[in-house]
């Protein structure tokens, strides 16, 4: 017994008045413990706080979160109600129980076999959308890091846990963040956690997700480490120096002093991404390091555009089947895996997007309606059963499309019907698009 809740305890919900029964302990941290708890047979999670300094502030802050309600994104495991126990003093809160299909982001990225670019970019966009919803609600997270996120790669979903540090920019903060994700001004103790510092942490997180390394740990940071007598520095000192006082982006175009350490995974991943994506990371870790404002940091709207564009530009190398991005800004692209010159793929141009029509690509409701519904498929690209290497576009909407292929009469594509991909104009109803010939599969 540790003075905290135990399996079998009954807890009373503050507002609902209902009773929960606690089950096994599933987590333990500095602030408290997390148990599974059952309410009318349904499983939930309860976090119970250790009594101590700051716990009253925590109660006030969580009460505010409960009253406010979850931001409009399902990723947040938001507190539902405060709970108390008749047996021991203190308090906790009840929240949804995280589904076991969610795994840590590090686990995903450390697998031998990496998820596809479509999965990686979908997860990135989900995270960006979630933090955008939070920031748009006037709140900040304060501790964006790997430890507070879970992902389901199969469903392309993210979950954000440990939401009890969320608050407003000027509010009382009990955390400052997690070292490598902390903005330079936070490490230098010149600022409090805020939306602006969240944006730095988000950029670091996205860099890890896409490039598999830390954006500021290069040769200069490496050289500051030492196990020589008299030269050893503590991790705190290293953090402060490399990420706080003298941070330099490993791909800074104007300062080559902190290039990636030989063997760093980022060296492999960085050139695979299109110019537009690399430009935004460069901004985040050059101007964004020093301009701690909403203007200096890259905001979610920009990240969302980058990630959507990445998602739309995935295809595979005709020679070796490696997953690739089409970069419209880069002439003479070559495959990162086999070095074969890459032909320009067939694309569908719509207002605001350019979708590479490769097998597995999905035309979403957002493409046609700009409604941020990235889950509803309006069309899917499938291999053409008549000819290897070619693709068809299957109409998954409930309305017919009108298409005018180059040099042909206008045709209708009924719901469920497949359209052989070739240069044409398409009227989807809510939007019009144009399939442009690529060089692949003899369409050029």
């Amino acid at each position: 017994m540790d003075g905290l809740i135990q399996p079998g305890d009954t807890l009373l919900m503050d507002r609902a008045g209902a009773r929960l029964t606690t089950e096994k302990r599933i987590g333990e941290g500095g602030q408290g413990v997390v148990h599974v708890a059952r309410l009318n047979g349904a499983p939930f999670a309860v976090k119970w706080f250790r009594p101590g300094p700051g716990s009253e502030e925590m109660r006030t802050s969580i009460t505010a979160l409960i009253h406010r309600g979850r931001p409009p994104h399902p990723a947040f495991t938001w507190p539902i109600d405060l709970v108390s126990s008749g047996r021991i003093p203190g308090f906790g809160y009840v929240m949804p129980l995280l589904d076991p299909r969610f795994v840590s982001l590090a686990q995903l990225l450390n697998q031998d076999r990496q998820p596809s670019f479509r999965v990686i970019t979908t997860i990135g966009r989900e995270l960006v959308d979630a933090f955008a919803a939070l920031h748009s609600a006037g709140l900040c997270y304060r501790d964006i890091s790997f430890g507070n996120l879970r992902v389901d790669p199969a469903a392309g979903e993210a979950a954000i846990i440990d939401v009890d540090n969320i608050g407003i920019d000027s509010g009382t903060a009990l955390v400052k963040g997690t070292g490598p994700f902390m903005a330079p001004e936070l490490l230098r103790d010149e600022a409090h956690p805020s939306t602006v510092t969240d944006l730095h942490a988000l950029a670091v997180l996205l860099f890890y997700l896409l490039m598999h390394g830390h954006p500021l740990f290069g040769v200069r940071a490496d050289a500051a480490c030492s196990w020589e007598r008299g030269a050893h520095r503590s991790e705190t000192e290293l953090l402060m120096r490399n990420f706080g006082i003298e941070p330099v982006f490993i791909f800074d175009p104007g300062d080559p002093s902190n290039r990636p350490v030989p063997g760093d995974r980022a060296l492999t991943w960085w050139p695979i991404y299109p110019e537009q994506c690399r430009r935004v990371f460069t901004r985040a870790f050059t101007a964004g390091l020093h301009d701690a404002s909403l203007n200096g940091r890259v905001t979610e709207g920009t990240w969302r555009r980058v990630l959507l564009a990445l998602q739309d530009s995935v295809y595979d190398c005709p020679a070796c089947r490696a997953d690739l991005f089409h970069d419209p800004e880069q002439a003479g692209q070559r495959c990162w895996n086999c070095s074969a010159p890459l032909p320009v793929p067939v694309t569908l141009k719509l207002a605001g997007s350019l979708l590479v029509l490769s097998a597995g690509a999905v035309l979403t409701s957002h493409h046609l309606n700009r409604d941020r519904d990235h889950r509803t498929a309006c069309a899917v690209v499938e291999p053409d059963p008549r000819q290897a290497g070619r693709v068809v576009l299957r109409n998954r909407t409930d309305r017919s499309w009108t298409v005018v292929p180059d040099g042909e009469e206008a045709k209708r594509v009924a719901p469920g019907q497949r359209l052989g991909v070739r240069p044409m104009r398409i009227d989807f109803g809510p939007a019009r698009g144009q399939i442009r010939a690529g060089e692949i599969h003899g369409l050029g």
Partner: protein
Amino acid sequence: MTGPGTSWPAEDSEATAERPAMLQAAPYPRMPGGGISRRPLHFIILADCSGGMKGEKIQALNFAIADMLPHLAAWERDQEQAQVFIRTIAFATEPWWHIAEPQPVAQLGWKPLQPVPKGLTNMGPAFALAAQALASGQIERRALRPAMLLITDGLATDPPGEFEAGLSALMDQPAGKAALRLAIAIGRDARSAALDRFIGDRGVPVLVADSSEDIADRLVAASLAVSRMSEAGADRGAVARRLFGAPGEVLPNIFDQDTIV
């Protein structure tokens, strides 16, 4: 931020086809591999193979280490900062490298140790051997603070002055001095002042294991402590409680050093 022995750059998806597909049912496309660039965390096991370890004790030790490694590997898979590399020094009258090259914990299969008939328990030379391995230039400069785990069943039998000489060789290396040093005594009668001196921190007691199950539990606790070492902002209180069963007591020396809260 790679460690020793990591392959690079792109993994062939065919070559790893037999690995369990943990997260996705759909076929994997060809992607660059290799995980996240992380900093090495060297973990050196010092295992007593003296004559007194024969029989159940050495079996229990082998079982417990084999049982501990998956815990460390599972923890490591969840890390974006630390990659764990294991080495092992076996010792009796003399020390020797049982695992000389740092092995990624995820790939390590434990090769059982055997006791040395009539072998003594000379710890000093084992410390000195570890000191050589932790010397500047022998480990990557970006390596995280190392960890060492001493597992023994008895009192040190070093000739006069040799225990101290070995220990000071270790302490003379910044990485040896900074290392998280843990000790597990097998058998309740095995606690000794020598192990406390190896640990060098009054807040960290010698872990005592009476049975093989106990050893496994203690090793898991030790690996947990090691794993938490590299987590900035890690919950030191919870680690301490789990490790040492001291509710509410936070051990400042081993856990507070490098943390920003």
